[in-house]
């Protein structure tokens, strides 16, 4: 058996050149040709993902080079976006994107994790699909449909809320605005929250379902209440997965384009309150790309894409770090 393996390995090694299947050495059981092929196939796929990401980064840098040379890092703090004067800066859209995503999480996380807990721990098994199915259905709705619904139905409702907030809590700086438009930070955030709730809920529910029944029953047997069992056993057990679910939701919120374009108000001014209209990076690129009429303009839009790419990378690194901290180093994230 062992001899066979060596022959296979040698001939394959010759055939495939320098690729050395190190992992196979750790596990002498994995020796036949099919396994090797599978190993190589997965390796190729894994590397192709990395290569695609690198190509994407390279292409973004190449495309935005003209703008990088022109504006450098000032692009990130510039507050003017003027295609006529050929001056581009993207600080207001960066802030708009991040603020909307953050507020969306503020709305979505308690609702999603709460409903995931309800589905997992309080609803009888046969009833679960009846609640889960509509939530998962929401995740499959195209964002343009969300956008149209938002524009025609949600924005007028939000506007009514805004008028009330402004009348009663107008002294609060976040509720102070020049006028009440309906579209703006608040509408964009609520829209995003509605769009990411299904994702976070579905993943959280699957994660909470993996909490071993025995652990929860143990807590109950020790005299804990159901609340204590959830709070002290289920949540700590699944917190890493829950963080992951929230990060996935955040990712969608930051990259979401069509729906926020329709309800965001899309202004290039810096925001001061929850009612101000604001642009976000992805919608800016989508809105202006088709009619960008000269190369510096196109290049600046691609630069916005590069910055968005950078923000996504930073957020996912932060998430990895957070998971690493939560697991007290037990999960080797960067291995």
């Amino acid at each position, binding site marked *: 058996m062992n001899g066979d393996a060596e022959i296979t390995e040698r001939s394959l090694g010759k055939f495939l050149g320098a690729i050395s299947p190190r992992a196979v050495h750790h596990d002498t059981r994995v020796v036949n040709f099919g396994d090797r092929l599978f190993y190589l196939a997965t390796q190729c796929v894994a590397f192709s993902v990395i290569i695609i990401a690198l190509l994407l980064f390279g292409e973004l840098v190449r495309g935005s080079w003209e703008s990088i040379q022109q504006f450098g890092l000032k692009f990130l703090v510039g507050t*003017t976006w003027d295609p*006529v004067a050929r001056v581009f800066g993207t600080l207001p859209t960066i802030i708009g994107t991040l603020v909307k995503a953050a507020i969306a999480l503020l709305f979505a996380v308690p609702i999603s994790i709460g409903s995931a807990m309800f589905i997992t721990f309080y609803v009888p098994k046969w009833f679960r699909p009846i609640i889960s199915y509509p939530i998962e259905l929401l995740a499959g709705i195209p964002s343009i449909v969300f956008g149209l619904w938002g524009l*025609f139905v949600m924005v007028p409702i939000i506007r009514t809320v805004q008028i009330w907030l402004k009348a009663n809590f107008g002294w609060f700086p976040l509720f102070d605005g020049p006028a009440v438009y309906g579209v703006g930070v608040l509408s964009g955030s609520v829209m995003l929250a509605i769009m990411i709730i299904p994702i976070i809920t579905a993943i959280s529910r699957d994660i909470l379902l993996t909490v071993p029944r025995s652990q929860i029953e143990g807590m109950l047997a020790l005299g804990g209440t159901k609340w204590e069992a959830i709070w002290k056993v289920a949540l700590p057990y699944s917190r890493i997965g829950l963080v992951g679910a929230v990060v996935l939701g955040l990712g969608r919120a930051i990259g979401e384009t069509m729906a926020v374009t329709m309800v965001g108000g*899309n*202004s290039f001014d810096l925001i001061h309150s929850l009612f101000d209209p604001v*642009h976000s990076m992805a919608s800016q690129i989508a*809105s202006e790309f088709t009619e960008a009429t000269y190369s510096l303009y196109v290049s600046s839009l691609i630069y916005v894409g590069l910055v968005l790419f950078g923000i996504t990378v930073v957020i996912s690194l932060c998430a990895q770090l957070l998971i690493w901290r939560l697991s007290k180093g037990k999960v080797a994230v960067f291995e």
Partner: protein
Amino acid sequence: MKVSSIFAAAGTLLISATMAFAQCPPKGAKELTGAGGTFIYPLMSKWSQEYEKACGVKVNYQSIGSGGGIAQLQKMTVDFGESDAIMTEQQKKEAQGGPIIHVPLVAGAVAIAVNLPGVKEGELKLTPDVLADIYLKKIKNWDDPRIKKLNPGVKLPNQDIAVVHRSDGSGTTFIFTNYLSKVSSEWKDKVGSATSVNWPGDVGGKGNEGVANSVKQIPGGIGYVELAYVMQNKMPYALLRNKSGKYMKPTLESAAAAADVANLPDNMEVMITDSANPNAYPIVGFTWLLVYANQKNEAKADATVNFAWWMIHNGQKYAASLDYAELKGAAVKKAAALLKQIKANDAIVLK
């Protein structure tokens, strides 16, 4: 009398003969590809459908935006481009196939939609300078004395003006900002004119529907929308004073009148905003077909030019039903003259 009518009849015959002759491309390219603005798309679909019926030539039009259409034409990946804006000198320089001819197809008007509770439809009058100052955020309330002065007898509310603009790059924005730049030097200096600009104020909506909805939902809202959209959705609009001092409704007739002026340049690369025609609505612009002046592929050139000829003559009858303003008078003649200049391998295509 008799002689002149015979002449007229002969003339008509001659014209119809040349038109009939020029309708279908004799040299046989059966497929054309074009790319450009979204504004013309509904009419272009109708045209390609009708032209296929009439001549068996299939026209495949991609509405990817004027900027995209220009880029495709520059790289010569399409037979014709289409744009709501005139190509810049830089864009012309980057065209790989040499000089490009701009042939106007139809005109489009931009209406000023308003949401003023208590003010009846078509009752509000605006002048160019007031409109510019509203968009510059210098006039901030409907109660402003300058608006009141234009509208004696109209009960204007004490209401903040919410200025709405397009957030996506568009030909509509180009026509609108071109108009504001013509009528207000301050606008020209501070903001300028392009498919998207650095707006002094307020809310951006995506597409005509985004602007229209924000205007509808925000009391005190004002926004600029394609005329077709205003007509189809029965939105209240403002009357605008034209160059001759008349307050004009945005209609297909007043839009078509804007293009019917004597001093159009021969190359038709002209913005007809703020038209001198006394019956013209002032915010009107052409949308152009873009073709190379001297083409390599004779069969394609033949099909393109004949299709263009058909669009500016026979095709115009479909324009009104889809809410586009027809080319009229001098504009058609100049467009036809331009088509007669187009060459394939140095030989005139239309004979």
